[in-house]
């Protein structure tokens, strides 16, 4: 270390922060690391909390999730942040679903292919070995038969997934009997049914209560952090929770010397210096920290000389089509309470211009909450009638969104209950969005009709922030992006951003597996280029 307190300061304790720390400490257990987290710690794998979740649907970490008024939406399209993130020890993987699809080769060239959004500074093949490591790290269950051959687009041979050089670490979950009628309709319409890849860190007992797993089976950054902090070898790892970082301090234009954070014990400000600073703070916080920091060397905030910080935010519009049939003679219910059936047939280069979509059979249909019926005082005969009565089904989709320069996350007025500055969200959907979404809904509606159901509704869900990405995107140079291919902020020598914020595209699938792959690539870079 060069007269600093720590070799690394990692801001944020989510999947990215804990993965960086893990790999650095595996390489050298004595590495001095300070990890700062704005949110509190919540008991996990606690049976009382689990029962409360089963009975009332209350999650132990509900108070840590975003509320709408935390982040004012000021653009032409309301952006709902409620429930989007978990600001806490372990970060948002505490509340994720664990769906772990890879991006596809065309996702790395969105701008080249469509003229919109951004391109990655490298291709799928560059990231592929890191995807394999990410699969192993997260213990992904998936179906090898669903992967394309190298050099062959997945769509060419009716495969769902891009090529992979190693098999999935674990076998896939089976399709359930109630998936059958949608699988049949898919095939009749030329849609390839696939098995949902899922991250299952420890042995899954199929409770379906993944949002608060009683056994810790679904991967969560909090378990990684537990392991790190209980490892006696890692004596130089220091973790401080409920300690929001308020700004970064530059000692020159290129060198970011320290971070300033609130001491949870005293409420005072603490400054800690580090050789390298890594912002693993997600797509909401990273741009604001850059904007708040760096004066007098950076007039508009660190890395923001080209006014790109906070721009191009994207997430996933959620499309769904619901249908009903008169009878449920088979008494089907959704037995896993997480989706097992998916398709990427419309998630290909051919559909990129319109907005690709990733299809999944909605987990909560068909379903009957038997206990609710009993609690309502219904007799056995009445409940049997409900169980065998009208059956609902729903097909859902994430639709790809292209980043627009005019959309932006910036610093709002005041702070949240975690001591973080509020995020002002200025976001407007492009004028042709509804028309493009309708085209996708038409394709989805065909499936529901093919199944013999009457279509009840086909809404486009409200714009929310669950998969927010691209607010500090990677680029080949500072006129294109905020960070380079190694995630270093352009114009600095020691400041990195590692979160969904750096993804130039959000594809049509959940971004976490890709984030872990990108994080593992970063750790290789850090270890190979020690100061």
């Amino acid at each position, binding site marked *: 270390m060069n007269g600093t307190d720590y070799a690394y300061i990692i801001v944020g304790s989510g999947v990215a922060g804990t993965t960086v720390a893990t790999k650095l400490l595996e390489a050298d257990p004595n590495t001095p690391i300070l990890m700062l987290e704005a949110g509190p710690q919540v008991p996990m794998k606690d049976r009382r909390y689990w029962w409360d979740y089963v009975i*009332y649907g209350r999650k132990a970490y509900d108070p840590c999730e975003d509320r709408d008024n935390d982040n004012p939406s000021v653009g032409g399209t309301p952006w709902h942040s409620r429930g989007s993130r978990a600001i806490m020890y372990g970060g948002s993987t505490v509340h994720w679903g664990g769906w772990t699809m890879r991006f596809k080769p065309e996702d790395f060239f969105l701008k080249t292919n469509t003229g919109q959004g951004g391109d990655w500074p490298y291709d799928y093949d560059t990231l592929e070995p890191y995807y394999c490591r990410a699969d192993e790290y997260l213990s992904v269950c998936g179906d090898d038969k669903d992967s394309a051959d190298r050099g062959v687009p997945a769509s060419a041979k009716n495969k769902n997934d891009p090529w992979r050089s190693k098999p999935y670490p674990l076998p896939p979950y*089976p399709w*359930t009997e*109630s998936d059958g009628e949608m699988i049949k309709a898919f095939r009749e319409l030329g849609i390839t049914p696939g098995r949902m890849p899922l991250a299952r860190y420890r042995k899954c007992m199929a*409770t*379906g209560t993944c949002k608060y797993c009683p056994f810790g089976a679904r991967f969560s950054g909090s378990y990684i952090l537990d392991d790190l902090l209980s490892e006696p070898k890692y004596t130089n790892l220091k973790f401080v929770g409920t300690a929001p970082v308020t700004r970064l301090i530059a000692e020159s234009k290129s060198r970011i010397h320290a971070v300033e954070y609130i001491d949870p014990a005293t409420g005072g400000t603490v400054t800690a210096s580090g050789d390298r600073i890594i912002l693993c703070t997600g797509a909401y916080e990273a741009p604001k920290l850059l904007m708040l920091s760096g004066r007098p060397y950076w007039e508009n905030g660190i890395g923001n000389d080209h006014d790109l910080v906070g721009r191009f935010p994207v997430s996933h519009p959620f499309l769904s089509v619901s249908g009903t049939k008169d009878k449920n003679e088979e008494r089907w219910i959704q037995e896993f309470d997480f989706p097992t059936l998916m398709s990427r047939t419309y998630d290909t280069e051919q559909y990129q211009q319109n907005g690709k979509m990733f299809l999944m059979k909605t987990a909560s249909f068909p379903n009957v909450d038997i206990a609710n019926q009993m609690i309502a*005082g219904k007799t*056995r005969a009445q409940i049997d009638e409900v*169980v065998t009565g009208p059956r609902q089904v729903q097909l859902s989709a994430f639709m790809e969104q292209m980043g627009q320069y005019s959309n932006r996350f910036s610093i709002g007025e005041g702070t949240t209950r975690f001591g973080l500055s509020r995020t002002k969200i200025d976001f407007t959907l492009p004028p042709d969005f509804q028309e493009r979404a309708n085209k996708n809904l038409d394709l989805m509606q065909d499936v529901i009709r093919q199944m013999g159901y009457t279509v009840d509704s086909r809404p486009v869900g409200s714009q929310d922030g669950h998969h927010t990405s691209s607010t500090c995107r990677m680029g080949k140079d500072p006129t294109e992006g905020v960070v380079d291919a190694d995630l270093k902020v352009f114009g600095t020598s020691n400041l990195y951003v590692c979160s969904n914020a750096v993804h130039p595209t959000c594809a049509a699938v959940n971004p976490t597996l890709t984030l872990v792959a990108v994080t593992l690539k970063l750790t290789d870079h850090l270890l190979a280029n020690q100061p």
Partner: protein
Amino acid sequence: MTDTMIGGEICKQPLASQLLAAEPRKLTRAEIDGLWRIFVAIGTVWKNTVYDSAGLKSSWLEFLTAKTMSRPSYVSEYVNALEVVEELIKIYGETEAFENLFLDNGRPLDNKGTPLNKPLCKNDIPIKLDTRIAHAKHFVVDEFIRVQVVAGGFRNFIRPHDTEIRPENNVNYNGFIAGSRFNRIKPVRPFEEPSK
């Protein structure tokens, strides 16, 4: 309090709506036996256990421990429910007492004496919990019902003709601990591809 509500003086006694205060403690054997009688009655009224409720007991006991040994403790609610049930049985006899408590008549009433039209259920904030019987229904019976269903009571609604629980008859439900150390045992009714 209204005259149309089931039960006697104990049931109709007013209470504040909040969970009754209590320190965590172990329940006595007599208390556990009394609460088990309520739990067993759920399977009797809805006829959703294969033999009896014994197969669900370990899950229920684990739930009971979690609710009484950590905060907020349910000990006072359980004591209240035992006294409510005792009075109902004295008035109606055991069979009718539980039917009254579990089915429509057991629901708390609104100010006009009409049963609340919304069930007290998951994610639902009860409008009025102002009597001892309303507390017993909401904090004890309703929660026991959900435990009973997720611990295995759901099976009989989904596969009513199964008289034995076998691996090939597996069916799953949200909250049921369905896993096994052996991957070859599917926790669900799997989709079988039709032979080509």
